[in-house]
């Protein structure tokens, strides 16, 4: 058999094999058999070194032509078979079956609200400070101008531990600690856990959370307090929210104010949540009382400042429509899992 005949035979065989090939694995076998290192075609190409130069050229060209043709055919078939494989497997999948859910953890609503409050004030340039929950009377009361045996202390009923040590009834103790350790200017918020001996019911808890704020500098005004709180309220509750400040009394600020926002439920028309008057009280605030500056050793004429404080539970209850404060501490998974 001449070399030419051999090549013809290879071509014929290959054409038949390709026609009968229906899957990628047998195609791979064909590829090895006809294009591999030990294929007949390669053997022919290796053997031509002994031929005459004319024959060499003729057989060599033809063999290379076949080699290219085979490669082309294999490639085409490979693509066809590959595509049809993908299709046939896709047909087997019922895409309407439920996906395998990623496990969704949750962050407690109080943490979420507290973090949100922190974020807003941080974006305004405030720093964050924290202080101890177990505190002395000095930091919780005296330095804040809350005298012993005075009705103003009624609002701050307190758990005592021993002697003058107590569980702080507000985070204002941190104000004193900050001012004792630093000179103005500064602006900080103080988030934390506080305690008051209230019997637990739907609206009372002996433990709750507060965020307080303090800004002190040489020229801080009541108008600045209004500006910061208005910015906070609109960031927290929505741009269309209205804010008003009512005069109030706190021993550690003067002038003092309670801050209301227009009811986020009824938009100020009056509903059950806002007791019909269209306003929701959410903050206490005021200008730092010069007596507090005196207690921390600041020159009262030199500095002015404002302070404010809010209850995190109250804000969370308003934001999420929660009507019972106890839900925060029962940790019912049906409650927790809503705060994804």
């Amino acid at each position: 058999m001449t070399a030419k005949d051999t090549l013809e035979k290879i071509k014929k065989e290959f054409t038949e094999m390709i026609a009968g090939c229906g899957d990628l694995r047998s195609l791979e076998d064909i590829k090895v058999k006809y294009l591999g290192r030990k294929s007949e075609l390669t053997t022919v190409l290796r053997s031509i070194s002994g031929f005459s130069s004319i024959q060499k050229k003729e057989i060599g060209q033809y063999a290379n032509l076949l080699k290219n043709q085979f490669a082309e055919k294999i490639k085409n078939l490979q693509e066809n078979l590959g595509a049809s494989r993908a299709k046939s497997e896709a047909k087997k999948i019922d895409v309407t079956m439920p996906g395998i859910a990623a496990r969704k953890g949750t962050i407690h609503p109080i943490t979420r609200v507290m973090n949100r409050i922190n974020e807003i004030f941080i974006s305004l340039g405030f720093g964050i400070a924290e202080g101890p929950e177990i505190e002395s009377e000095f930091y919780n009361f005296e330095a804040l101008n809350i005298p012993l045996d005075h009705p103003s202390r009624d609002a701050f009923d307190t758990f005592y531990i021993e002697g003058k040590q107590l569980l702080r009834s507000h985070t204002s103790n941190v104000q004193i600690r900050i001012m004792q350790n630093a000179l103005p200017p500064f602006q900080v918020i103080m988030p934390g856990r506080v305690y008051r001996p209230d019997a637990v019911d739907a609206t009372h808890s002996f433990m709750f959370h507060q965020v307080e704020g303090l800004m002190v500098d040489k020229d801080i005004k009541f108008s600045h307090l209004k500006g910061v709180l208005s910015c906070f309220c609109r960031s927290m509750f929505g741009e269309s929210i209205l804010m008003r400040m009512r005069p109030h009394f706190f021993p550690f600020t003067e002038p003092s104010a309670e801050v209301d926002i227009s009811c986020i439920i009824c938009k100020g028309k009056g509903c059950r949540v806002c007791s019909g008057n269209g306003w929701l009280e959410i903050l206490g605030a005021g200008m730092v009382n010069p007596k507090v500056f005196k207690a921390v050793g600041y020159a009262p004429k030199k500095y002015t400042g404002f302070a404010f404080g809010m209850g995190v539970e109250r804000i969370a209850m308003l934001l999420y429509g929660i009507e019972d404060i106890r839900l925060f501490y029962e940790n019912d998974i049906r409650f927790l899992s809503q705060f994804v």
Partner: protein
Amino acid sequence: MKLSYKWLKQYIKIETSVNNIAEALTMSGSEVGEIDSYKNDPVMELEITANRPDCLNVLGLAREVGAIFNKDLLLPEFIIPKQKIHKNGPEIICSIENDLLCSYYSGRVIRNVDVKAVSSEIKNRIFSVGMRDVNNVVDVTNFCLLETGQPLHAFDLDKIEGNEIIVRVAVKGEKIVTIDGVERVLEPPIVVIADKKRPIAIAGVMGGKHTEVTTGTRNILLESAYFSPVSIRQTSRKLGISTDSSYRFERGVDKAMVSKASDRAALLISRETSGEICAFHKTGTLTEKKKRIKFSIERAEKILGVRLKKTETERIFRRLGIQITARSKTSITVCPPSFRADLGSEIDLTEEIARIYGYDNIPREIAKFVPSVQRKETPRIVLEKITETCAGFGLNEIMSYSLISPAAAKLFTSGIEPARPVTIEKALSEEQKVLTPQLLTGMLKSIAWNLNRNNKDLGFFEIGKLYSRKNKKFLEIPVLSCALTGLNRKNWQEAERAVNFFDLKGIVESLCGVLKVPVKFHSNEEAGFQYSASVNIGKKTIGFIGEISPKILDKYDIAQKVFACQIKLDAIISLSKLESRHIAVNRFPSSSRDVSVLCSNQTAAENIRRIILKTGAELLRNVELVDMYEGKQVSSGKKSLTYSIEYGMSARTLTEEEIEAVHSKIKETLVSELNVAFR
């Protein structure tokens, strides 16, 4: 405090609607809540702050309304015409044992009273604010209290023994039956009004039953006094009673009103009962040093951030009863009225201007901020990262009370901080008595709550504090606690399985991986656990992890396994790195070899891993345990651990021979050090 609209209008000429008045009062500091009505008379419910006892009466509120709406006050009749005073009363001696208790005490004798029902005029007033009627004498004293803010008390003069009235501290064990019919045992520092025989009233709080004015009463003694706010507060707290009278005394009544109110009441009692106004007896003094305060409009403007008009400022002061005594170029000097003890310094006056001027009229501005440095690894941000990561791992964050029962505080006694617990002096209940020394009982309580509601597959975490004391110092240590119980998530592809220790350990390892804090686990015996490991950073133990013992679970009625950990966060916070540092990826390929180690089931996997790491040294890139087998195919008491070891170098590709050499060396070392075999 309740305020009738009609009563208010008795002292101020105003046609403004009740709603507008309520709004104005609210926006000037006396918050009006509900508006009810009594016989077509709107009645406002006001919240009066502790610094404003002058607003605890109708006249005081009329003054506020007058200041806001710029109206004059119409004062009632306060002066007893001389010809009305009879000279025939008995001589009464009033005395005060200690003028720290009471600086002034007075008694007015009124004779031949006809005690009966009060006139409808007074009855309607006291009814409108929710008070009940008693008789024309008692009702007038109540009317005057509400009108002027001065508490008054009328005694049946004929029931008083002797002719002397003493204000003194109670003797321990002394008894009095008060007008509410309750017998009260007294002791210092309670202050009483006494005759020569016994206490006849608890000073400033409540009168005695024995000397109470009844229909049979003919002659009365009308008391008006100034009791010290502190002693009335102590008395009221000691007895646990708060009355309209004590409420006002402890906040401080108007010294200038003490005798005026007495005269006003005498006039009304005389009118109501046809009694004769007789002698007036008193002791002590009502004078007080007049305060002078300098007020600068300029400074007020600087604090409020608003321009103020001089004329308006002065008008507000005048309407509030604040006298202007001197003017200079830069400031004015004022004298606050006797009923405003809260006005003691310039800032108090600034507040007065601001609240009458209206907070709404002050603009909103943003102050110049000095930016604060905001570092990335502050404790708060690390805690936020931990929270987010744990939630990302599928856990639900819980929050539990920091106060727990003493019994719960003893459950995990060895804890990670062996110290004394912190206890509340006067706890509300046994359940809220001790500041929690661990977060595990809160965790178990929450798990039990959910199991009782048939939710059994739970994964919780909490970031909280442990409280303890060391010597005299109180410690508050931030900790993380996690717990897993029930089944792993199930779906239609994978079979469900019970969660186990390694699910929880994996969470802790992954969390520490995120924070880039290297932690190690060592077998230990934690109190309250079936088995446990300590969690260590270097040689320091920062927490523990394990399966909670059934003995403790029984206390919470938990019938399934609970895996829990508690880790102190202070070291984690200070070591954590939230930003990464880039390390060049390996350019040369690595090569893996598996080895199945057959060893005693007592051999700690950590030891095998340590030997592999040590022996492989710089040629080793990674070791991973890929399989663990115990069972028929290995002899009993043995286990088979399969490790996949990845070899490689950063400088070049390792040759087959090099890999083979180090792999054999590892195997030899395992045999020589741990006496293992290979499968």
